[in-house]
């Protein structure tokens, strides 16, 4: 950004301040109200399906909480501070309902247990990757090219031989001088 393309001081006062939900005061400011809202939200069929699907894809509960809370912060339900405080009860509640429904889950609090979410992992867990695609992804080792240049190192098969001294003189142009001298 060049100095002239930056906003001028006071430019923020010229735009509407309530453009985004997070510009306005959040809907919920109390801890208990927040937990209650999250529990009601998770009781909705769509939210339950989404949460359980994510857990079945081996996505840890911490990541599920992260997704849900981020969504609600952008909608203006909570402030960021309250969202962070609500993460604990939300994770515990998800753990309880997952246990109750017999869904295998992982809390993901330990860094070692964390599985990085990559497009490949997501595809594999969703069963999108075909066998052909798997084979295509295997990187074949590049065949060794034979070196044939003048400056190429000698191959193991051809032993290095030293030219005879007469040949070496000829290569250095010493022989011509001798011939010229004789003439």
């Amino acid at each position: 950004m060049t100095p002239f393309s930056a906003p001028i001081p006071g430019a923020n006062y010229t735009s509407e301040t309530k453009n985004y939900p997070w510009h306005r005061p959040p809907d919920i400011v109390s801890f208990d109200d927040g937990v209650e809202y999250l529990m009601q939200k998770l009781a909705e069929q769509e939210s339950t399906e989404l949460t359980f699907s994510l857990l079945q894809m081996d996505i840890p509960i911490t990541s599920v909480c992260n997704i849900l809370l981020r969504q609600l912060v952008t909608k203006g339900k909570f402030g960021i501070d309250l969202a962070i405080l609500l993460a604990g009860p939300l994770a515990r509640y998800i753990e309880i309902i997952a246990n109750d429904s017999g869904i295998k889950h992982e809390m993901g609090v330990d860094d070692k247990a964390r599985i990085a979410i990559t497009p490949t992992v997501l595809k594999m867990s969703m069963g999108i990757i075909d066998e052909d695609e798997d084979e295509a992804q295997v990187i074949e080792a590049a065949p060794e090219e034979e070196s044939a240049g003048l400056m190429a190192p000698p191959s193991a098969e051809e032993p290095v031989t030293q030219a005879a001294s007469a040949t070496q003189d000829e290569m250095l142009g010493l022989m011509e001088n001798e011939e010229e001298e004789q003439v």
Partner: protein
Amino acid sequence: MKFEDAVKKSIKKYLKGNIPEETDETTEGGIYYTPDYFDAMEASLKEQSSQE
């Protein structure tokens, strides 16, 4: 600190039994949804499922 790191740290502390102290003090009657509340909830759910 990133948002996801803060979330993870918050979960870790809550699972250890810690509650947000300042919030607890400022809330009238203290926080209702404590770790104990969820323990009791889990126990009652287990009891219900074993009865079924």
